[in-house]
């Protein structure tokens, strides 16, 4: 797995929102964090990451600020808006319900 199309758009949104709910991050860090936390399973390609980030920003779920990064260069840091936080909870709940349902079906002996 790793091809951009394998991650459905909605799922990528959830991952991004969750990742930056802890602290503001730039795009590179978000991708790295997702990769890390998922145990190298989920690798987000740039081709889907930045369109997703920009879409979320245009929809005002997340907001961006340019600040100095850990390397000393300027980078664009994304953080959740309050509306984004509410959206995150909603999507998490949805995902739990969905995955539980799938699990039930799949684990039917």
């Amino acid at each position, binding site marked *: 797995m790793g091809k951009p199309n394998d991650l459905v758009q909605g799922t990528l949104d959830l991952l991004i929102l969750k990742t930056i709910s802890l602290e503001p991050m*730039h*795009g*590179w860090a978000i991708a790295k964090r997702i990769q890390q936390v998922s145990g190298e399973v989920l690798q987000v*390609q*740039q*081709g889907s990451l*930045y*369109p997703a*980030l*920009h*879409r979320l*920003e*245009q*929809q*005002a*779920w997340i*907001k961006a600020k*340019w600040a100095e*990064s850990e*390397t000393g*260069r*300027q*980078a*664009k840091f994304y953080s959740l*808006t*309050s*509306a984004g936080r509410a959206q995150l909870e909603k999507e998490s709940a949805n995902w739990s319900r969905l995955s539980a349902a799938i699990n039930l079906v799949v684990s039917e002996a």
Partner: protein
Amino acid sequence: MRWFGLIAMKTRMLFRRSDAGERLDDELRFHLERQIAENVATGMSPDQARYAALRAFGNPALLRDQARAKWNWHGAEQVIRDVRYGMRTLRRTPGFAIIAVLVMALGIGANVALFTVVRSVVLKPLPFKDPDRLMMLYESSPKDYPYNIVSGGMYAEWNKYNESFSSLALVQDSENAVAAAGGQLPEKLSSAKVSWNLLTTLGVAPALGRDFTADDDMLAANGTVLLGWSLWKRRFGADRGIVNRTIYIDAKPYTVAGVMPEWFAYPRPDTQMWTPVYHENPAEIMAMVDNHMFRVVGRLKPGVSAEQGKADLSVISRRVFDAHRDLAFVNPGANIRPLLEHMVGPVKRPLYVLLAATGCLLLIACMNVANLLVARAVSRRKEQAIRTAMGGGRLRLLRERLMESLLLSAAGGALGLVLAYGALEWLVRSRHDMTRVESIHIDAIVVVFTVGVIALCALFAGLVSALTIRDKALLTTLQESSRYASGSQARATLRRVLLTVEVGLTVVLLTGAGLLLKSYERLRGTDVGCATENVLTMRIGLPGARYKTPGPAPVNFFDTMLARVRALPGVDQAGLATAVPGQGWWEDDGFSVVEHPALPQGQALDALTRWADPGYFAAMGIPLLRGRTFNDSLRLEQAREVIISEKLAKSFFPGEDPLGKHIKTGGDSWSAGGKIYTIVGVVGDMRYDIGEAPKETKYFSLQDGTENYGTLVIRSSRDVETLALPVQRVIQGMDRDLPVADVLTMNQLLGKGTLDASFNTTLLTGFAALSLILAAVGLFGVLSYIAAQRTWEIGIRLALGARREQVLGKMLSDGLRPALAGLTLGLAASAEVSRLMRDMLYETRPLDPMVFVTVSATLLIVAALACLVPAWRASRVDPMQALRTE
């Protein structure tokens, strides 16, 4: 809460877009740098790290576009970018752009102009209240006269007994002279005698003053008149005090009751005065049931259908017919048509034909522009291949093509709208006799139509040229050198197909124009039965108040006038008649032949009636076949001679000599008692209307004093138009208040009668010529393109020994093949289309072989000429040059 953020985001994206674009670049660059750093950290060399990072990163331009695609206002940004790009590419080739815009402007302009005319004249409802309830009513004799005008007596019966109409009104076209006043010359004007309820029937109120009342519409009432708006402005200085003032019409005093609104034009476009009909006509005439003089307009009651109205009136007509079996000219039935249909029925077919012609012209223009676009696309195929390889989608290219054609169409459409406006202004000014011409305006619907047409043209031209986008052959396109253009075969076929269709449409237009031209030529060339060269005519009407009929006053006036006119230097002959050939039907009356057995009751013979002075036939050039003209010394009651036309002699005196026999007028209540006339001469037939067959005519002597109007005819061997002023001065000298109307040469008078035909013919010929030019230009372009593509191949052929003439011949045949195909298609289509035009043709068969042959020859010659230049250039190619150049 989120709304606020959304709006802030949208605003920022609208106004700080370039900023955001730069930031996006920075963001992506940052990511790339981090990836490279990570690669280096895992042990790669800086170069390897960079390559690996870039490979993983993908196409930066594509990435940027994908991110930007998520931004707000992305759609709008794309459209604006396409427009800017389209304008830039068009500006680089200004010649192409200008030609394309002009071609579009012509096509769209013609279409819009004609659509406006059709919409205003044929489709728009009449400007009256509830116009779909207004009907035109006719008397009807099913076999001979299904739509006859109405008699006063029948109208009175209809009015009294009908149940279906809320009101019925009478209209009679007329002409009146307004007296000289305040330094202005006397003037003869189109007018109408109407029943007092005409305006209420139509649902119109005067703009100033008041409408007629029933009291005005009586013989004994004081004369009242309603004035037209432009007459009021022009002759009475738009003076609001005109109401209740007295003006003199036909030497009689009339009180001005009111002024009509500016837009009102009924019954004719140039009617300027309305007077009450019962006041103007003697009571006996208004009571007659067999003297058909009037048109009747009716408003149906709500819920009543036209059929019911017709049935209702037919019953009344039948009753009157049965009660008057002794009269020959009573019609037993009634007929009905919507008022709009009555007014525009005759012009519908020609207008639709012209509209179809402009449609063809527009199609040809679009195809020409499509052809031009295809040529451009071909010359840019390398550029487009590269762009496709870099990730620009096929949709993107299609959008650009459409944008280009949209820009061209929009510019052409705007220019076309201006052209249409100008053309319509000219039309309204030059054809103010045309039905409903006053209602021709460019309004909102026309503008919407224009926009629609522009969009359609853009789509058509753009999509056709977009058919040439094939990104499958990408690699070949990139690799091929421009001299070996095998991939462009498909495009050449496309252009040839376009051309074939263009030529086909052009042939259809040419055939239509050719048929109309031939028909018009036949029409104008018809022998009207009299002299037409060097003949001047003018109409005179003596006011009844001062020249009572019957009586000696008009006879004396005409005698003196003719004597003085004949004495003028340059006048060879002069004569006077109530109406000359080509002036229309005017009057017909029933009669019987004394020497023949009596006809059964209720039947009578019928012929046109004219009054003429003894010198008329010689002056008019109507040949005197037998007998003599009127005896000059017989006046008033003693003038009981009649001259008949040849057709009358053949129809009613077959196989016998009519001279010396007698006719008795009567059979209608008009001449109760009937006078007896002696036939003294037979003259040649004449046509009362150009384009109509001659009808039996009888001429009475003007010297019987019953008529006080007529058309003066002057013949001269010199330029007859120079005599107009001297003759008018003679008449003015005899009576200062006598206006003279319609001073026209015979040719001009006949031209008036063929005005519609000449107008339609001129327009259609113009369209056909335009389309021929466009098709020729198209042919020229396509063949030049083909020749340019095959320069290399031609060079080889020439180097291998082919003769230049062979190359020329081959190129010519290549170019003429689509032309021939188009010609065949076009001829087949014309055969069908010309059948639809049958009504518009005069003595011309729709499948006239001469026309078809001429059209084919014209097209082939023009096509050959158009192909000649590129073919010639192709044969002049220097083989060494051709082989060396790319």
